[in-house]
């Protein structure tokens, strides 16, 4: 016997669990007796049946080798019988017998059919193994490759070729370090030098414009494929989408936290805004009950003022709420000059008496943003300019826009009272902060400006000199870096 056939079932006798292993140590199979062979045939047939769901069909081509082998055997066998009979006739003519010849020919015919069946079954089996290999390795969704002890690639699967964008022939006989870009190759080599810790290595891979995160793990393959050395099975996983999802999640959490903090601020703001006039109205009503005629008139006047304040407070709160819910509003091109003209229309009443000198220097005439939010920012910045003008000199306002590396910067410069930034810079954009006693306000305008700027993905900064004037600058990021509308996670990847 030149080989062994090892056949084993799982304990349950479930045919799906049948394992079949064949070890051939030389090329001389099947010289044993028929009983033994038929038993083996049975095993093979069962295994083949159990695995018939695999996409292997016995095609004409797959039958060919079996046919060839048995035909060769048949021809050789028949030739041998005829030749040996002829030889016998020459050497010992009296011994020649036709039935003996026929018996020999029949035996050769019978065994050649058997041989055909066996070879065919083994051929099928090899095809099954190939199909398994294809499913498990070549077509696995996990990128895999097998290296020998010098880390030269021996096998590589399709996913690995796609992931690293290296063709299969290019892998063969190469080390991966030679195929990767510099930084990735160094990291990979370092990982190998460290003895390939189980945790694997994650590195970034730049493919075209997109950055991919690839995690590589390894396990030794103690196969003795004719060699004594251990091979390594590497598997690489593309973590890009998972990392993106994580980043997205982190950003959402951050946004939620900010939103929560904003909500807290908003709640306290609401209480202030509404509580002040409401408390006044309550107090005035209590006073009214026992008031003299003269007092009543004053009380009514105050009641009127308080109720107006209440109305204004509600409108302002509405502004803020609307600003917070304008997430769905579409981004559009906004012409800055036109928008400012709209704001001037809203402030027509104070403008009529003030007639400020307004100059424009719009190097960037239009920006892509949320119009309603930008309008509210303009409104509050401009109305602040009007409120905090210097009474001793005519008001001049300069509105400018320019492109900076960070985005478009829009500036409001005035020659008003100015702000004592040393004292107030920390509180300037907080709600319910007022810095001038001369002009009564709610302390909301700049809070709203800051909130909306943040919402637009930008920020507002201030520089001022007391008694000289103030410059408010609004930096709006270029839209492709911006968060509105919901940016696709791929566009804001951090680079390592």
């Amino acid at each position, binding site marked *: 016997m030149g080989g062994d056939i090892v056949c084993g079932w799982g304990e349950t006798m479930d045919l799906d669990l049948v394992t079949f292993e064949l070890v051939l140590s030389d090329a001389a199979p099947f010289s044993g007796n028929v009983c033994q062979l038929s038993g083996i045939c049975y095993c093979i047939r069962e295994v083949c049946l159990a695995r018939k769901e695999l996409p292997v069909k016995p095609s004409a081509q797959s039958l060919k080798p079996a046919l060839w082998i048995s035909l060769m055997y048949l021809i050789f066998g028949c030739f041998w019988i005829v030749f040996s009979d002829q030889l016998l006739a020459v050497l010992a003519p009296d011994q020649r017998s036709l039935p003996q010849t026929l018996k020999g020919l029949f035996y050769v015919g019978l065994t050649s059919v058997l041989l055909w069946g066996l070879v065919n079954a083994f051929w099928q089996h090899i095809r099954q193994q190939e199909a398994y290999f294809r499913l498990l390795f070549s077509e696995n969704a996990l990128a895999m490759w097998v290296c020998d002890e010098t880390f030269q690639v021996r096998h590589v699967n399709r996913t690995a070729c796609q992931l690293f964008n290296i063709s299969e022939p290019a892998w063969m006989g190469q080390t991966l370090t030679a195929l990767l870009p510099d930084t990735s190759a160094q990291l990979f080599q370092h990982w190998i030098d460290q003895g390939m810790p189980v945790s694997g290595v994650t590195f970034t891979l730049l493919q075209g414009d997109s950055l991919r995160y690839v995690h590589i793990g390894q396990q030794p393959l103690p196969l003795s494929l004719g060699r004594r050395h251990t091979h390594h099975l590497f598997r690489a996983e593309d973590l890009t989408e998972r990392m993106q999802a994580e980043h997205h999640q982190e950003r959402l959490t951050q946004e939620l936290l900010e939103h929560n903090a904003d909500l807290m601020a908003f709640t306290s703001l609401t*209480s202030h805004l509404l509580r002040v006039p409401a408390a*006044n109205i309550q107090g005035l009503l209590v006073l009214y009950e026992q008031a003299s005629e003269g007092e009543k008139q004053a009380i009514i006047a105050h009641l009127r003022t308080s109720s107006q304040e209440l109305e204004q407070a509600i409108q302002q709160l509405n502004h803020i709420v609307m600003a917070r819910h304008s997430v769905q509003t579409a981004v559009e091109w906004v012409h800055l000059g036109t928008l400012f003209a709209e704001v001037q229309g809203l402030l027509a009443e104070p403008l009529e008496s003030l007639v400020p000198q307004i100059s424009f220097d719009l190097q960037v005439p239009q920006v892509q943003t949320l119009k309603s939010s930008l309008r509210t920012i303009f409104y509050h910045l401009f109305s602040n300019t009007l409120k905090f003008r210097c009474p001793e000199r005519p008001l001049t306002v300069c509105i400018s826009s320019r492109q900076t590396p960070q985005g478009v910067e829009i500036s409001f410069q005035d020659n008003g009272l100015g702000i004592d930034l040393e004292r107030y810079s920390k509180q300037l954009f907080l709600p*319910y902060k007022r*810095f001038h006693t001369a002009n009564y306000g709610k302390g909301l305008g700049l809070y709203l400006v800051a909130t909306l700027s943040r919402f637009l993905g930008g920020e507002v900064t201030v520089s001022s000199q007391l008694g000289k004037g103030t410059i408010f600058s609004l930096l709006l990021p270029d839209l492709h870096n911006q968060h509105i509308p919901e940016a696709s996670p791929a566009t804001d990847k951090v680079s390592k």
Partner: protein
Amino acid sequence: MAESPLVLIVDDDPINNFICEKMILRAWKEAQVSSFTNPIQALEKLQTIPTASIFPAYIFLDINMPEMDGWEFLATYAHIPESVRQGCAIYILSSTIDPADIDRANHYPLVSGFVSKPLTEDKIAALQIPDCA
């Protein structure tokens, strides 16, 4: 209660000051009430008072004010000699509903208590009036 207590109101809201003046006069007919809408001016006035006898017996102080808030007012107020201000009770009079503000008012050493706006006769009556020297 002192015969004719001096009462000072510091709040930037003139309507609140109007209400407070009227309410205090209803509660204490003899009271002399003055009010400031600017806390800095109020402090300047207090700093010029030389003796305890003509120092206000009560101060009603708002928290949210422009330029200087109630807490900043108190920090500066602490520099007035104790001999002058010892007879004065300060009440925080605010519309806040922020528990942190209320808590801070109740635990601030110089502050006698927290009163929620609007000030009414009932609330004045409920104040724990300390003994006046």
